[in-house]
């Protein structure tokens, strides 16, 4: 809405999502300056990072409880809608926005959370911001932004049977590295992307930040419109027609030129997992832990050596021989109904291996409700998995769901950083189907291995 060439452009923000961790200092800033929330009607808060997943009432850790109580008090004081623990719409912020129909094509969406890129799956510009920017958006409903560069990631052909959106994005990050997308907004395109469900598209866009991209988006199509239609905040009647006309115009020009392009052949993909301590350190499930000496770049070599030490892995070990202690199914990356269905299909009629703890954490209370309606909860509990309430849970180990030092997890989340899931914990990022098969096998495995 402002573009004068001298200062950064000023973007109007159509939807601002809040959670308890990155907002308290922003509300404090408003109070100190005597400012209000400019558009409470474009703002929504949920509780997710600190919430327990074993009950809906008691937050045992006093500092976690304080942070959540602070959010509740701030929302009350400033008039912001909040979905608290126990509320039917509570859940991980990036699951809640789309399921309420608040995330729509052609919007700008921000949140004090790096996985805000998830909402790009609807053809919106969505990115994570820091707390100072949260305060800026609360006060002005705008954000100064320099224009990013553009990149196209084209995935030609169809994904082979048994290869999911998660495998695809892990493969992309292994090609680009963690900084490869820096400064770019990425459009994911091509046949394989068009064939993904909305849930799959959200998984891909969600992990854009893991290769450093400012945002990732996918052009909206009939599948997008169908997903939005009828949801609580979707336009209806004549407004639906007006919205649809606009949304249909949101296509990249045929002859558009991107600053960078990456092309991937879907036919060559197979289930993909990480071996190291950043999301770019990945390999095919059929592959082996790489030898650090095989990296030409000295920085990559040292990083790989550090990663193998932390992960307690030997170069050359086949990934399928890596035993795990914990399996985590959930997060804003893979905590949606389709993810739970994919895992349930694999684990149905089977048992979680002895000594393995499988934790299933739906992305939202609604996802949980839907899963129960479909009987998925029974599939998981009969297999011996732990069926939990919604939240961020072990994805970042802020609530009590944490790995203990040395424990190894197969996790459907987005980050395998050192200590991410608990101090000294070791994380392998995997798809929901691989997570389920791994739980049964007790070691990294795909459904075909069972």
């Amino acid at each position: 809405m402002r573009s004068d060439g001298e200062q950064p452009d000023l973007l109007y923000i159509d939807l601002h999502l809040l959670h308890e961790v990155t907002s308290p200092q922003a509300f404090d800033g408003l109070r100190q300056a005597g400012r209000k929330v400019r558009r409470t009607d474009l703002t929504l808060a949920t509780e997710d990072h600190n919430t327990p997943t074993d009950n809906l009432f008691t937050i045992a850790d006093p500092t976690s409880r304080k942070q959540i109580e602070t959010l509740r008090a701030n929302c009350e004081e400033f008039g912001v809608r909040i979905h608290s623990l126990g509320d039917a719409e509570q859940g991980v912020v990036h699951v809640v926005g789309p399921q309420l129909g608040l995330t729509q094509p052609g919007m700008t969406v921000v949140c004090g959370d790096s996985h805000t890129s998830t909402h790009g799956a609807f053809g919106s510009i969505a990115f994570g911001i820091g707390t100072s920017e949260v305060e800026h958006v609360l006060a002005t409903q705008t954000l100064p932004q320099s224009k990013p560069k553009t990149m196209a990631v084209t995935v030609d052909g169809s994904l082979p049977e048994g290869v999911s959106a998660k495998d695809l994005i892990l493969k992309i990050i292994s090609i680009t590295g963690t900084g490869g997308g820096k400064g770019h907004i990425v459009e994911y395109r091509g046949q394989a992307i068009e064939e993904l469900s909305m849930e799959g598209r959200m998984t891909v866009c969600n992990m854009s930040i893991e290769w450093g991209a400012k945002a990732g988006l996918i052009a909206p199509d009939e599948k997008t419109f169908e997903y939005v239609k009828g949801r609580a905040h979707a336009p209806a009647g004549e407004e639906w027609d007006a919205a649809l006309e606009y949304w249909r115009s949101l296509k990249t020009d045929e002859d558009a030129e991107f600053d960078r392009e990456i092309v991937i052949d879907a036919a060559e993909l197979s289930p993909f997992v990480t071996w190291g301590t950043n999301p770019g350190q990945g390999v095919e499930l059929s592959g082996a832990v790489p030898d650090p000496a095989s990296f030409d770049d000295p920085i990559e070599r040292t990083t790989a050596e550090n990663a193998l030490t932390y992960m307690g892995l030997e170069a050359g070990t086949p990934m399928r021989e890596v035993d795990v202690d914990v399996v985590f199914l959930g997060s804003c990356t893979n905590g949606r109904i389709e993810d739970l269905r994919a895992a349930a299909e694999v684990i149905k009629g089977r048992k979680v291996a002895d000594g393995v703890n499988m934790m299933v954490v739906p992305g939202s209370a609604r996802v949980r409700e839907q899963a129960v309606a479909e009987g998925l909860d029974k599939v998981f509990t009969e297999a011996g998995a732990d069926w939990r309430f919604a939240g961020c849970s072990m994805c970042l180990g802020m609530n009590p769901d944490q790995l203990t030092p040395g424990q190894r997890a197969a996790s459907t989340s987005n980050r395998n950083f050192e200590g991410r899931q608990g101090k000294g914990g070791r994380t392998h990022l995997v798809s929901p189907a691989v997570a389920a098969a791994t739980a049964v096998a007790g070691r990294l495995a795909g459904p075909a291995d069972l």
Partner: protein
Amino acid sequence: MEKVTTHTGPAAPLRRSNVDTDQIIPAVYLKRVTKTGFEDGLFAEWRDDPAFVLNQDAHQGATILIAGTEFGTGSSREHAVWALKDYGFKAVIAPRFGDIFRGNSLKNGLLTVELPAEAVEALWDAVEADPGLAVTVDLVEREVRAGERSWPFEFDDFARWRLMEGLDDVALTLRDEARIAAFESNRDAWRPRTLPSAA
């Protein structure tokens, strides 16, 4: 915000790349509702290790951190910046930063400066050889200096002006209040709202 122009001080060499924000401050340390008091969480996983650079006597009191590439990737937590500032750092030098971390640092007056990998390597060698070496990060001249050597860096004009003047972003934006209000009055009626009507 305090004005930021130039800083001179001793530097600590962190010879690691891909130091993500979970490394800078793990999630369990993010539970405070204030902007200060985060120094105990800084690099928490490594603080028990006597070999870690910040535990070495020679680098006590360092105010500049020199790190490997992809520093501050990952989570949007501004707590990473607050923790570095609480510890006493005024500037971080690295070949490349995560975008959100970089943005957060500049909102808080923590100078983050990108230098080529060779320059970072030379600085590492220099401060390891002489831990008391005064390193200068000069925003006015857009230059890092140490001993006899100097390296220019690029820095966005607008961000530099904002830091040097110590300006508050919200106040700057509110100068455009009329433009924001005009834009709002023209937004499509079908755009989603979280509440039944504007507050």
